[in-house]
């Protein structure tokens, strides 16, 4: 319990530091939202008035505190460009990105774990060696290019889906998931190769350990040794890797949403940064940071559940 409290406290502290960094860095980088809104032809008086109404003239710490207070009330501010509450704007985009990332993550687990185990079982065989080479190539392909390849092959040559023909989840859930399949795959593929390789290496490392010999000495079959003993031990480092990937995939989705024309918040983030729409940008980055912190927290707790040795000495 003390461990959980400690982790929770450090998570909150991290979030606070991120909020300070985000707010002040956007306040300091060049570019005036008021100018962006009114255009270069605006009179200085009009600019002054707009800055006043947007709250841009108050000193920075005051603006920061106002913003934080708003966040606690659930008020993320109002978008400069659209003049509607940021919360409302994002409510539409957030589920799309979440669905894309989760879909991609599930694909990653569903493909990489059986593949990694199969590799380790047939170490040195044709399957193992050819896949290692293929994996090396796939790992080198950036997701956006993978996205383009998939769009070309499945969208244009095979016509399995319509490129750019995004279906909203409000219209049809199956159509929505069907459209997300290839973008999710593009994000997942390089990571599948990495995870497979890691799991393979971990299984092969664990197989050489003494407790495996003990398990065989008790008459276990190779399968029983693998599933009863080896996998759990081999999976520990993979778990950390997967968690790192999950957070990384959110960043990867920004690019992929662009390639496939998916209206998630990744795409929205780019538009908002270019438009100096700071309330939107700040909300998105804070959301991302919170997501990453929560995933890390969950990984730590999960790790502790699986491995009884962690924290045993304290």
């Amino acid at each position, binding site marked *: 319990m003390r461990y959980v409290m400690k982790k929770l406290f450090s998570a909150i502290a991290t979030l606070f530091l991120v909020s300070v960094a985000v707010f002040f860095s956007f306040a300091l980088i060049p570019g005036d939202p008021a100018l962006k809104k009114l255009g270069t032809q605006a009179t200085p008086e009009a600019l002054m008035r707009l800055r006043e109404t947007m709250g841009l003239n108050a000193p920075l710490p005051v603006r920061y505190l106002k913003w934080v207070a708003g966040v606690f009330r659930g008020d993320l501010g109002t978008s400069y460009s659209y003049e509607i509450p940021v919360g409302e704007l994002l409510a539409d985009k957030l589920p799309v990105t979440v669905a894309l990332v989760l879909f991609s993550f599930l694909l990653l687990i569903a493909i990489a774990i059986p593949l990694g185990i199969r590799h380790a079982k047939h170490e040195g065989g044709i399957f193992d060696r050819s896949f290692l080479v293929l994996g090396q190539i796939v790992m080198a392909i950036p997701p956006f290019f993978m996205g383009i390849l998939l769009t070309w092959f499945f969208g244009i040559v095979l016509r399995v889906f319509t490129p750019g023909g995004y279906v909203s989840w409000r219209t049809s859930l199956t159509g929505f998931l069907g459209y997300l399949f290839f973008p999710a795959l593009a994000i997942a593929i390089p990571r599948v190769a990495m995870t497979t390789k890691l799991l393979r290496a971990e299984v092969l490392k664990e197989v050489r*350990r*003494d*407790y495996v*010999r*003990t*398990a*065989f*000495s*008790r*008459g*276990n*079959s190779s399968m*029983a040794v693998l599933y009863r*003993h080896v996998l*759990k*031990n081999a999976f520990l480092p993979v778990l950390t890797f997967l968690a790192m990937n999950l957070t990384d995939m959110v960043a990867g989705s920004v690019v992929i949403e662009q390639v496939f024309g998916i209206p998630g918040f990744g795409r929205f983030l780019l538009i908002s940064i270019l438009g100096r729409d700071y309330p939107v940008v700040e909300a998105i980055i804070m959301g991302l940071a919170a997501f990453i912190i929560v995933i890390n927290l969950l990984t730590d707790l999960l790790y502790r559940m*699986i*491995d*009884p*040795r962690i924290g*045993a000495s304290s």
Partner: protein
Amino acid sequence: MNAEAPILTVEDLQIDFHDHQIPETAVYDFDLSIRAGEIVGIVGESGAGKSLSALAIAGLLKRHSAVKQGRIHFEGQDLLHCERETLRGFQGDEISVIFQEPMSSLDPLMRIGPQVEESLTVHHPEIGSAERKERAMEALASVGLSDSKRIYESYPHELSGGMRQRVMIAAAMIAKPQILIADEPTTALDVTVQAQIVALLKKINAEQGTAILFISHDLSLVRQLCRRVVVMKDGRIVEEGDTETVFLRPSHDYTKELIAAIPRVEKKGTAGRPSLPETQERGRRPILRVSGLDAGYGRGRQILHDISFELYPGEILGLAGESGSGKSTLAKAVLGLVGVTSGIVEKHDLMPAMVFQDPYGSLNPARTIEWILTEALTKGRAGRFPGGRQTLRQRAAEALAQVELPESFLERRPSELSGGQRQRVAIAEALIGRPNLLIADEPVSALDVTVQAQIIALLEKLRRETGVTILLIAHDLRVIYRVCDRVLIMRDGRIVEQGDVERIYFDPQESYTGELLAAAGITG
């Protein structure tokens, strides 16, 4: 069934490895028979092939790396050539194994209970989980783990080394096998725990009639436990027979050498050893005087309590005790590496140097011996050393000569050396700074018995020729007796008893000293 008929026979076992291009034979013409209820020992140094032979009998040699020829008869089957399923049917049910390292031999992520039960789970699925748990509790209780309920729910890291080995034995015995193969089961344990495990194996053998194949490099343990012994060298059996006969009238030269290498503890009186400190050295000033020392690692982690002793120039002082008794911490306190809470450490022109237990881990594998030896003098900047590289090389060669290694070793790397040679290099590394105190922390415990004898002889020679004082930390009381003038017996961070080795060994004043000596099989 005829009680004299063997239950397991091994004929002409040969094991080849094809890991490298040329097949390498590790075991030749190995023959062995085990009768019901018998305890047979296999002794030999590392690389003799004793563990390989045992693993082959247990069916645990990996098929692709080793090629086995010969026959292993058990219950009408040839274990070397039968179906994998038939072999598996025996493993854990009729033939069980316990290993050297009980920590790594247990699955770290699984509770003790399911691991103890595993042989039943695999071979007797008809037994329900409640009964299985009951049998596991019984098995844990029968190996002397009285708190079996708590142990059942524990993880391996929560137990001590001795408890883990007991758990391994409970797991091996749960299906009541005919044969228990024990591969160096006590090597990683403290002497008193060793003695307990040996007693437990004896009890299992007497009460359940399980035959035991006991593999060890420790001849005195084999002598305590086994009726019959097989001596192996370089993959071959060189001698076999009744244990007492082999010990008293060894016929093969190697067996004689092996037995001679065991440090003997026989009362020599003052004639047998150079008696330095308590007689003529008393008048000399000690190079180290520790009085009332309390020390440890930060707040609340006090390890050493009220330590007082003196170290005289030219003596060899032994530091004995079980693991966790504070021996290494005391050495660190002498070097000033741990925080001293109270007490005095008086040093008079003390120039200490350390030698560690594990010569594999303490030498940088990527460097040549010359680099390793001179690093201490140059701190990695050879160019700044007065006298330059030539002098450095000369100093390194001198240090090698002191440990009886040729100058040509300067060009080699640690991986090209044997264990004994590495320990010699480690000693040379300590000597190169010309210390007057050598602190040797278990310098021989990782070595084979004949190599141990050589390193001990080397330490004695160094003391004789250079007059260096040696603080020797060892858990092996025979080694201490062989080489030390005086000994400190430690327990739980305190000195239990100290004095002349002769006096301590043959007239211990404290009951703990007596226990320790009895556990090592030195005194009854």
